[in-house]
């Protein structure tokens, strides 16, 4: 069942990205496009969490993570960005600073509080374009590493 769910969430994310591309051709407003793109990133983050949960295999963690994280957009953005910047091997302060700044910006964009520029939209797309690479890296983690990450996430 887990593998099926994982695949479905991944498909959701890819579908949302396709929707974004189609919307771009239809010249939909940047705010709508950004919303769709950020939803794709949230699903990507959910996908990473599902991979970690199935690798870790701890049912208590699974129940608590599912209940606490699944409706928190900011944590999903933070996880996505932390993985991205960790892969670039930035130092820890830089990662924290960038992740905080960007995730709160994305929360505001998602809530429709700001007008999204072309540049900002492209920036979000650049992050999304690393989804495949990030997935590979997450798939390469072992059981203990997966549990360690989830144990940190559940307390956020």
């Amino acid at each position, binding site marked *: 069942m887990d593998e099926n769910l994982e695949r479905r969430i991944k498909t959701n994310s890819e579908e949302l990205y396709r929707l974004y591309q189609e919307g771009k051709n239809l010249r939909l407003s940047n705010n709508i496009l950004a919303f769709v793109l950020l939803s794709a990133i949230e699903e990507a983050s959910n996908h990473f969490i599902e991979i970690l949960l199935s690798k870790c295999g701890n049912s208590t963690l699974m129940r*608590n993570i599912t*209940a606490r994280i699944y409706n928190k957009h900011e944590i999903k953005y933070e996880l996505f960005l932390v993985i991205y910047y960790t892969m670039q091997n930035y130092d*820890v302060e830089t990662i924290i600073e960038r992740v905080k700044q960007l995730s709160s910006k994305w929360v505001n964009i998602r809530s429709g509080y700001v007008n999204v520029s072309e540049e900002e939209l492209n920036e979000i797309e650049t992050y999304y374009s690393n989804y495949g690479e990030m997935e590979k890296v997450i798939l390469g983690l072992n059981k203990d*590493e997966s549990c360690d990450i989830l144990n940190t996430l*559940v307390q956020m």
Partner: protein
Amino acid sequence: MEKHIRYVIDGYTTQRVEDIKKGLKSHLTNLDDDIKISKNGYKVSLSFRTPANVRVMQCQEIDELLSKLGVVATRIIVSDVVTYEYMTYTESNKRLNVNLLIAALSDGKTVERSEGIILSCKKRDGKWMRI
């Protein structure tokens, strides 16, 4: 490396964050300054820790304490945690540097890493259930 027991609690409240924090400190004398409370509307999440050598409070007990502070708890997660200083080192292979990732997720050079959940429960039909 220091060891602690961390409590993470979700719930509802109409109280102010500062008042809950003050109340927690006066009811639980063994807390350090690491108390995080985030409130969104009436929803609230609390996170605090005690030293590792004190007794672990049970869900019912935590619930009774929080209700004195005007917080209705719905979920409680208690974990063993260790804190340590993050040391920079580069990993030569292409694998993800999980230590760096956890340091970044836990917000700083002093990393708090969870060693696992020791107790977690949820309120269902007015009763606390272990989950």
